[in-house]
């Protein structure tokens, strides 16, 4: 919930300010629109749009299986691990499942979201919404709803199936549930605005996937998500600890694993204050980056630019066909 509120509050403020400074010339024209009324309409449109997009995702077997396959891979990999985390009695599979949970959140924000944004920008959805009153705030609300729903569903399916089928970990006690909640929410806040910024910049869906997937996989391996960080060289640890995934995974582990597993952490503890600090810093940086980039992306769209890209895409596709 934190994620929705903060993202939409910030993005809505973005929409409102741009409306406010552009709306000056409108002063004398027509009846002044009642601001609360129109804002309520945008929120309703945004939630409705989010709901419809979730429904479309659920009805699209190809895309849905693309998301489910991640969960299946995670469960299969964890299922094949039968040793313990070195120096503890915690099953390695529990560490890996915690890492996958963090990684899948990371992937929703930094791989799935940019892909959705680039695709919708290329097809002209962003332009259409820009030409619709309140379209951009509604779009951002809808995307937040969609991302939170995807994240929640992924966690529920992964941890649920893990617990049922692979004797996977679940938080013990209210404290751990709360930790899982805030780490997930803050983790999303760290990666979603960043993903939006990436989606605003990248040229087209195909290139976007190639450009994002490689660093994401690199971080999956080096962030201690699948095996203890201590088994990696110190330099790699240092580099990985700049990025949010390492801290997301560490936070999720603190919620899912018993305290005894702290022995396998580089610091010997969960470092939750640092987790919060690093993720919050990424969230702030992401927002600062995403707002101007998204604005620019929306402003730059026009019919002829869209047409130009379609022509290029068709030319590119022609020799292959």
């Amino acid at each position, binding site marked *: 919930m934190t994620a929705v509120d903060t993202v939409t509050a910030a993005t809505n403020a973005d929409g409102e300010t741009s409306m406010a400074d552009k709306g000056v010339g409108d002063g004398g024209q027509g009846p002044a629109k009642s601001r609360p009324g*129109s804002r309520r309409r945008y929120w309703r449109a945004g939630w409705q749009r989010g709901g*419809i997009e979730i429904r479309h995702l659920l009805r699209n077997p190809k895309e849905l299986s693309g998301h489910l396959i991640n969960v299946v891979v995670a469960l299969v990999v964890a299922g094949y691990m039968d040793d313990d985390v070195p120096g503890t009695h915690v099953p390695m599979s529990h560490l890996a499942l915690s890492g996958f949970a963090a990684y899948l959140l990371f992937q929703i924000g930094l791989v799935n979201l940019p892909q959705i944004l680039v695709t919708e920008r290329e097809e002209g959805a962003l*332009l259409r919404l820009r030409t619709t*009153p309140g379209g951009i705030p509604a779009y951002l609300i809808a995307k937040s709803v969609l991302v939170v729903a995807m994240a929640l569903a992924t966690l529920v399916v992964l941890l649920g199936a893990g617990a049922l089928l692979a004797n996977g970990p679940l938080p013990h006690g209210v404290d751990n549930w709360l930790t899982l909640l805030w780490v997930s929410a803050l983790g999303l806040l760290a990666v979603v605005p960043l993903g939006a910024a990436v989606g605003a910049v990248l040229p087209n869906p195909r290139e976007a996937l190639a450009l994002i997937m490689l660093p994401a996989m690199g971080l999956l391996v080096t962030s201690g998500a699948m095996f203890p960080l201590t088994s990696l060289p110190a330099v790699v640890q240092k580099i990985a600890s700049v990025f949010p995934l390492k801290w997301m995974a560490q936070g999720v582990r603190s919620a899912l694993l018993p305290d005894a597993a702290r022995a396998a952490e580089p610091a010997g503890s969960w470092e939750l204050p640092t987790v919060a600090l690093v993720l919050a810093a990424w969230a702030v940086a992401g927002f600062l980056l995403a707002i101007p980039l998204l604005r620019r992306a929306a402003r730059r769209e026009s*019919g002829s630019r*869209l*047409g130009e890209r379609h022509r290029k895409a068709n030319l590119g596709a022609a020799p292959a066909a």
Partner: protein
Amino acid sequence: MTTTEGAPVPPTADAAPPVIQVSGLRMSYGSTDVLHGVDLDVRRGEVFALLGPNGAGKSTTVEILEGFRQRSAGTVRVLGTDPARGGDAWRGRIGLVLQSWRDHRRWRVAELLTHFATYHEAPRDPAELLALVGLTGQSGKQVDQLSGGQRRRLDVALALVGRPELVFLDEPTTGFDPEARRDFHDLIERLARDEGVTVLLTTHDLVEAERLADRIAMLVNGRIRAHGTPAELARSAAAHAEVRWTAPDGTARREHTADPSRLVWELHREIGGPVADLEVRRPTLEDTYLRMVHQDEVAGTAAGPVTDAFDDGVGSETRAA
């Protein structure tokens, strides 16, 4: 000029301010001038066609009017507002149909239209609109299953859902088969006649412009080279009739005149009998248009003021009387 029953717009329309007012519009990209001082007035309730070959500056002009591009110089008012400062309220009064839109492919037709209705304060009834554009039978279909013509008609419905006063149609029938084209033309005629919407249509197709427009402006190489009602343009084109005959000495002769009947009469009197191989040909609007486009390609940017096009070719060959 098309008027709505009960609320007639005076043919001169001087009483109401123009929906679009453009004067001295200039646009340059770097050192390249794309528009060299365009003047336009579009009156309330009319269908206005901006006609010109590809690359003439149509898209640039329209995108400035739509508020997607900044102009280099000149005054532009669309619905009384400078498009560069148009806010959400202004956007809500404008509908856009772009050739390059391929968005919301997964949505169902009625679902999409109903969703976009929620952004507006007093939207039109989606079901009624679908009937208007002839898509009632497709309302449950997914957007990407529509034909090109159906897709464009859906775009028209989406543009109309917020009850706009002005609709931009960007080369709407490009790539249509003849039947889809005729259906689309019928729709636009009905829109202007029954709904009282002002339409700015861009096209490179003269036949389309003649069929749909109350007034036409021909944009060639960044300048308006001619404008008027189709009848006015056709009259002034036809005024430069070409008369061919064979002189008594056997040489083939050719002259351009505004008064072919008088020329032929004079010829008969001079020769004192039948004139050999006599042929009178009145140029169509299409001839004039093509000549104008061709001349401009040859002459480059050294074109004269608005009326030039129809005076060209008269001078040197006109019979000295």
